[in-house]
């Protein structure tokens, strides 16, 4: 029976070997969450990654796609010129999005990834050994990013904010925690309230200068935009005015702005932008992919004849001259190109700049009957474009209309037009977009599949159709 003993001893020897050595194989090239959060040097890179994701894969969020979808849904694009590879874009144009629209998935997923990372920061940074100043700044930036992302989402995926009423129409899911828990949609009012709160808190926490990252001025500027879309013109005016006057970022009176806004160098008017460091780090990939038209790329969207006519109505309009060319004019095969991205391997992407704030201040001022300020801002912009100043003494609504028309021309490709049309529709009614009423069902992008089915029955879908 000696052998039996040897065998038993062998079994025991193997059996008592620490199983951890034999069964613990953590993933290579990854850091366990607990270890990562313990390390104070994790937080800044984690914050960087939240900024990084604003671009979205291939420019799928603010790297160009969000802005481009807004252009396609607006009234500046020629539907016949939508490249066949972009089948979703026809749906955006026709307002027939479904839960399977691929670009909508990215458009929703990427901002929420930024929100998730911001929430991880907010939940953990106080427990780190970072200095208080860093903690405050990081929290401020996280709140800013969370507010910005929720705001961009609610504009696409929910009906616009009403100037009156409860605004209890379904908005988007507000995420204030890092969690996998399924959640239903908050109301539009809840979303706006949270965005305003996050940005307000961010203003208090953020420094006035912060390199290329968010400052208190960036938070104020975004808050101005949010209040503007909530039709709160007093707040919008005050915030925009504060930033324009006090941030130290100046309006560029020279027409170099038209070359620099999307360029390798970038615009000096930028209050917040996404920084590209080279060709392999092109934050504007979504722009260059769509609009670039040169020996290497073919433009995938064409400009509508109607918009082109407006953009070039005044032959002295420097923007019209610089930005547009026509191939086979006035023929059935006419193609109108937008040239701002030609021959650019990468560009700096401004997310908020002084020119936009001047438009916000101008209309907010006019809405508040401060036509002097409105005239001042719109004329600065017109002058720079080589256009004559706005005729003096116009009634308020005409001034407002002139500001909106100018904004459409000045900020083409930056994704404002569609959101402005819906804002104006909510404010004044009577707006149509390519012939469809501003509030037809399909005007609001359908929620992508995973946001719906990931939540069981909690998500109310947007209504479809009605725009054709």
């Amino acid at each position, binding site marked *: 029976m000696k052998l039996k003993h040897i065998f038993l001893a062998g079994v025991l020897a193997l059996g008592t070997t620490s199983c951890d050595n034999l069964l613990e194989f953590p993933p290579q090239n990854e850091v366990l969450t607990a270890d990562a959060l313990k390390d104070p040097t*994790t937080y800044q890179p984690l914050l960087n990654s939240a900024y990084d994701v604003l671009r979205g894969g291939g420019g799928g969020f603010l790297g160009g796609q969000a802005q481009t979808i807004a252009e396609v849904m607006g009234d500046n694009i020629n539907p016949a010129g939508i490249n066949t590879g972009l089948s979703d874009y026809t749906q955006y144009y026709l307002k027939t999005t479904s839960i399977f629209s691929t670009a909508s998935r990215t458009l929703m997923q990427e901002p929420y990834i930024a929100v998730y990372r911001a929430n991880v920061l907010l939940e953990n940074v106080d427990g780190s050994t970072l200095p208080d100043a860093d903690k405050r700044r990081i929290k401020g930036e996280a709140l800013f990013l969370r507010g910005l992302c929720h705001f961009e989402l609610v504009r696409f995926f929910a009906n616009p904010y009403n100037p009156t009423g409860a605004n209890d129409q379904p908005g988007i899911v507000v995420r204030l925690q890092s969690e996998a828990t399924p959640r239903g949609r908050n109301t539009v009012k809840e979303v706006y309230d949270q965005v305003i709160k996050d940005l307000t808190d961010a203003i208090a926490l953020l420094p006035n200068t912060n390199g290329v990252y968010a400052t208190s001025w960036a938070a104020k500027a975004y808050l101005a935009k949010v209040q503007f879309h909530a039709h709160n013109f007093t707040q919008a005016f005050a915030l925009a005015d504060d930033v324009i006057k006090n941030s130290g970022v100046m309006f560029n009176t020279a027409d170099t702005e038209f070359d620099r806004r999307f360029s390798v160098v970038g615009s000096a008017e930028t209050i917040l932008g996404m920084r590209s460091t080279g060709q392999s780090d092109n934050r504007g990939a979504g722009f260059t992919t769509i609009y670039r038209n040169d020996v290497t790329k073919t433009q995938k969207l064409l400009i509508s004849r109607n918009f082109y006519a407006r953009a070039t109505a005044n032959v002295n309009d420097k923007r019209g001259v610089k930005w547009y060319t026509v191939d086979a004019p006035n023929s059935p095969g006419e193609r109108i190109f937008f040239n701002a991205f030609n021959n650019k391997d990468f560009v700096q992407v401004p997310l908020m700049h002084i020119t936009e704030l001047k438009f916000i201040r101008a209309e907010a001022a006019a809405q508040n009957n401060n036509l002097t300020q409105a005239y001042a801002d719109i004329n600065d912009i017109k002058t720079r474009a080589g256009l004559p100043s706005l005729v003096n003494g116009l009634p308020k609504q005409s001034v407002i209309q002139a500001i909106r028309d100018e904004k459409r021309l000045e900020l083409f490709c930056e994704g404002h037009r569609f959101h402005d049309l819906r804002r104006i529709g909510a404010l004044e009614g009577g707006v149509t977009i390519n012939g469809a009423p501003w509030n037809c069902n399909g005007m609001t992008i359908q929620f992508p599949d995973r946001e719906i089915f990931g939540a069981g029955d909690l998500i109310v879908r947007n209504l479809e159709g009605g725009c054709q």
Partner: protein
Amino acid sequence: MNNQYKQPFAKKLSDDNMAASIVVGKDIRQSFWLKCLMVFFAGFMMFSNAYAQLSIAGKVSDKDGAPLPGATVRVQGTNAGTITDDAGAYKIEAQQGAVLLFEFSGYKSSTITVGAQTQIDVTLEDEGSVGEVVIVGYGELDKKAVTGNITSIKGSEIMQTTVPSFEAALQGKAAGVQVIQGSGMAGSGSVIRIRGNASISAGSDPLYVVDGIPITQDYFTNGNRGAMNTNPLASLNPNDIESIDILKDASAAAIYGSRGANGVILITTKRGKKGKPVFEAGVKVGTSTPTQKVDMLNSSEFLQLFQEAYENDGGVGPAPLPYGRSWADARNTNTDWWNLTTRAGLKQDYNFSVRQGGDKHNVYAGLSYSDNESYLVGNTYQRLSGRVNADYVILGDMKKPMLKIGLSTSFSHGINRQVNGAWSGGIGNAMSQSLPIISPYNADGSFNRNQGPNPLLNQNLFVWRNRENRSINSLNIDFTPIDNLVIRATASMDYSDTQNDQYSPAALQNTTSILGTAYRFPTWVTNFNMNLTASYKYALNEKNKFDFLIGMEYQKSITNSYNRWEVSDIDGPLFKKTTTGPNLQTFYQANADQVWSFMSYFGRVNYSYANKLFVNASLRVDASSRFGSNYRYGYFPSVGVGYLLSDEEFMKNILGTTVSTVKLKMSYGLTGNANIDNYARFGTFTPAGSQNPYNGQPTTYPIRLQNPDLRWEVQQTIDGGIELGFLKDRITAELSFFRKTNSDVILSRRVQFSSGFGEYLQNLAQIRNQGIELAITSRNIVSKDNKGFSWTTEFNVSRFENKVISLGPTDPDQIQGGTNDTRVQEGQPVGINYLVRFSRVDSQTGLPVWLDKDGNESFNFSLNNRVFVGSVVPDAIGGITNTFRYKGFDMSFLVAFTIGGTIWDNSAKRQLGSGLMEQGSPWNMRREMLNRWTKPGDNAQYPRLTRNVSTYPGLPGFWDYNSTMFLYDASFARLRNLSFGYTFDGDAVKKFGLSSMRVYFVGTNLLTFTRYPGADPEITRDFENAQDRNMSPNVTYLTAPPERTLSIGVNVQF
């Protein structure tokens, strides 16, 4: 396992059914050793004559009464023995009470205790019939004692079929085993499901165990490249396979614990047999063609339909043709892209083997080369493989080894010349975007690059080769310190080295700035296994016998791989000697290693009472590196009972002579499925600086949440069955029922986008599979002397019900197979079609009419009206094999069939309609499209042609045209296999030095009966992951149909 397990029992038994499985010399008749032996025995017998002994005489014959000359007869425990003469007769001296052992190659040995009788006639049963041994986990068992459900298939049956990979040959052979043939690509793998699919996100493939080693079997080591998943089984040489045993229920599979739930396929390779060397050589040559050509429109038909769509949409005059093609040029072109991308492939297979054995050793060595061209131009799989299996007894001898060492080693070198398929090009283009009005060549003879996909470009210029070197090795030491106790230590390693090489020359890239770009996707997998078992046989008394097994096992697998190597400005693929240009650039990106391990302890008791009641109980405890910290160990017990009712005296009268065998079986147990992501349990971050920087600064972010509760899926199986034999077992039948309930089924829960992360594995769902299986083997006509006419029929059929019992709150779109093709829903099978119902084509407008959720007709298409309309799971499967023999002739055919289930033709939606809506690059259409609406009053199968998505109201985009218009019945029956052969033996071949020679013809997939109008009703498409593989068989997207092969061959033995 070895004979010594059973010998002690045999000593005390007179029942010849409880025979030991001793392998004896082959063809000992003609051996020189025979004479030596006889001289030796003669001497011995003279010596032993001093004792007063009985003189016994008798005859040894087979079950049909034919004499067995050359059988050995020995007195156990002594050296006395003799050999039967030409009439099978023998004479031997033995004492009363001694045990005579009768042995003959190819037959079960038998023992008889000498009583008062002097005449002992013995019938030996051949190894293939009742009484055979089946391989079970960590051992083997008399078939009689099996309490679980196991199907055994001989290697020779596998070899009768020409298949891209051996597992496809299991189709129609085993009840409850569904085999969906792979596509026509060389070396492609089948989808095999044992008793239904019981998982959703976790892999459902059975565990493959070769000579006791769970081998590397990941289909996704190379992802889905070019619409092809790597088939890890293609490297196994079917010529080396002795037998395949399929463990189907818990009683059989629970010994494999957390990896047994999908069933276990045990592959036993050939080993040497005692006797002089036996050589075998074979050559097989054949052709490969597609089972079905997909019938696309020709040029004039395409032009007609294209113009019609244009006019339907309000166009006037000749329609502008795609790619600016002029009508004149288009009319003058009629390219059959299918013919340009397919061919008749040539298949060749050569194999050579030798088996030999002595008292102390045995050895098998095999060498094979096969060159399997598929019918796809440029696609071929070549495999050179060798195997050596050897056993050597260090102490003792083969009959009674004390210390024995065994080696199994194989090497294979596979070269797969891959081609693009399906969505990736090649034959996929021929069925889609390559138009008949476009010529593959320009007027100057150069390749046409500008008018849609031209598969000939890749076909001629692109180099793609997958090279796999694989070696599966194991070494075991058996130590028998005392009678009946065997301690076995095994160490093994399965190593594979795969290099997937691609080369895109400058001509293909249409550039002159570089010579070309070479890519390599290398993967190395090392899979270690160590186990230690001890088995002990214990007989309490004559009737109560036990067989104990305990063991432990540790397995670890390490996968190293690169995402890719990329070398640009190089003049050839990396596997060739190449030169590089001045603009050389290299790029290497490694993947993180994938490591997993299992630590297991197991035990088993087999108990038998009076050789008619059998109880089998086992328990395995598994720990794995994959399981979350809250669930480190899984326990997997099983118990099975078998009762040989017909051996009861009281039954013998009841059953009479018609019913010869009645055995009842019942088992219950738990098994698991641990095919889950290796690292899903860990919550992790990316290391700072490893990802995209922002503003030049490092970034880090969370990858996934910690998942301490992640664990194996649990399967609870109840299995019952009855084995029946009629007319002395000329007809045998096994009827089984099973119910297996999987709980803790893992879902890759696709959480809301708003959570900010992707997927999260959770043990959430419950799935139930239940069914009935019937297998019948009937020797309809038998021949007394094996020379006359004989006819055997083997039939099996299985009826399934597969049902998701609970899924938790979820939307039908939550869990999707592949590219949005199939769904999972409570109360439905795994993998259902969720589509808008198509009602008819309106005869006035030609518009499609749909059904809304309530079944009302509507012109408005809405994805919100999708309902469950079908399932990829069949209702029943089966097969029938008939084998005929007459003199040297043999003929056999196998018809495999599937009843029920649906095919979702995801490419038809574009081949039969919406493909035209792709403005820049429209699709060609299948000829069925000729039956479309053209004018008011038409009752057509397909709606009016259009190039505008908005013509069909509500259709969001051409991708969304998902309706029952393209859903088909998946039932089919096919002549899977047909073979004719003639075997020469005796004098006819003796003069050539051969002992036998068989020449044969074999055809596979010769006839198919189906209602599916597309390529082929058996569809194993390219899959993205395990969930896709579970949910999307029977879903095609330009998948190449399986091949039809015609082969002739010759096998010789000498």
